[in-house]
């Protein structure tokens, strides 16, 4: 089973039925898998704060939402995470590609990577880092935790987790 299939299986098993995505090269496989599942309403967003708004609405309408995005989005969404998701106490699993980590070929990605953990810590967002494929074994528990505590939770997935960037 591919890692993308396993991840989306865990989403479905936890009742996640509304997923918004903003693409990243590393997330292409998991986004394809989300799109392919009948159990999930997949709604691509144009920007990540818009996506978090959609997720807030879907949650209040009775769905279990999630967002899939790149770590650069942490720079975009601070206000929305704080004044919407956290202020109104809503759950939001955030599956995030952790660009700018080891094996990264694009220097500019490192500029946001060095702030990613610090920002998440500052926002008091529970954060998990998937580095090896077996780290994804915790996803099921992380999703249960998110919907138990009604908080946004970050799952950072780096290049090593996704198997690198191919030949460089």
């Amino acid at each position, binding site marked *: 089973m591919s890692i993308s299939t396993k991840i989306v299986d865990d989403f479905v098993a936890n009742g996640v039925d509304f997923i918004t995505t903003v693409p990243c090269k590393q997330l292409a496989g998991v986004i394809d898998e989300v799109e392919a599942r009948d159990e999930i309403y997949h709604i691509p967003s144009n920007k990540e704060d*818009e996506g978090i708004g959609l997720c807030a609405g879907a949650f209040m309408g009775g769905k279990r939402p999630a967002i899939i995005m790149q770590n650069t989005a942490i720079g975009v969404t601070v206000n929305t995470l704080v004044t919407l998701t956290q202020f109104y106490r809503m759950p939001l699993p955030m599956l995030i590609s952790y660009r700018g980590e080891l094996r990264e070929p694009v220097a500019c990605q490192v500029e946001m990577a060095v702030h990613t953990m610090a920002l998440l810590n500052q926002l008091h967002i529970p954060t998990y880092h998937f580095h090896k494929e077996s780290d994804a074994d915790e996803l099921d528990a992380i999703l249960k935790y998110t919907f138990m505590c009604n908080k946004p939770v970050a799952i950072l997935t780096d290049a090593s987790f996704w198997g690198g960037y191919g030949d460089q």
Partner: protein
Amino acid sequence: MIRSEILRDIAPILRDHLVICNIGLPSQELHMIDDQSTNFYMLGTMGLSSSIGLGVALAQDKTVISIDGDGSVLTNFGTLPTIANNVADNFILLIIDNGSYGSTGDQPTYAGKKTSLAAVANACGCENVVECQAKDTGEVLQNAINSKKMTIIVSKCDSGNIKVPVITKDPVVIRDRFMTAVQS
């Protein structure tokens, strides 16, 4: 007519539906005019009324009306293509377009100058876009609800504010009673 007069006018229509109300004065005015458990007041996060409303509409069957402003739509322009391409026929976006950032001191917006939000919504692929004068908002809104077709309404009105108290309700209370109303 100014925004608060429109809200007073349409309050009897809004009362029967789920409403997502924009940050700042629009929420404070609606809260003062006709507080309902079916109203979700945005206390922060400028620009996302339409996104939150679309999310609620896609998640369940009741009619959802997002009350937005021209400045807020300009802040989150990406919402219009998303709305156009994810049709929810129980969703109405009511943009109260007074051509100004009302909550921050009536600074002019581009929607009050060359930019037509109705034309932008059409260009984004929204299928039922109605621009109306402030006094006709109630009739247009009721028609949109009756049509059971996703509709974008741009209500052109004058800028201007009234004195209103801030909302002191706890956000979790606002959210919880709204979710209870959704499920009832």
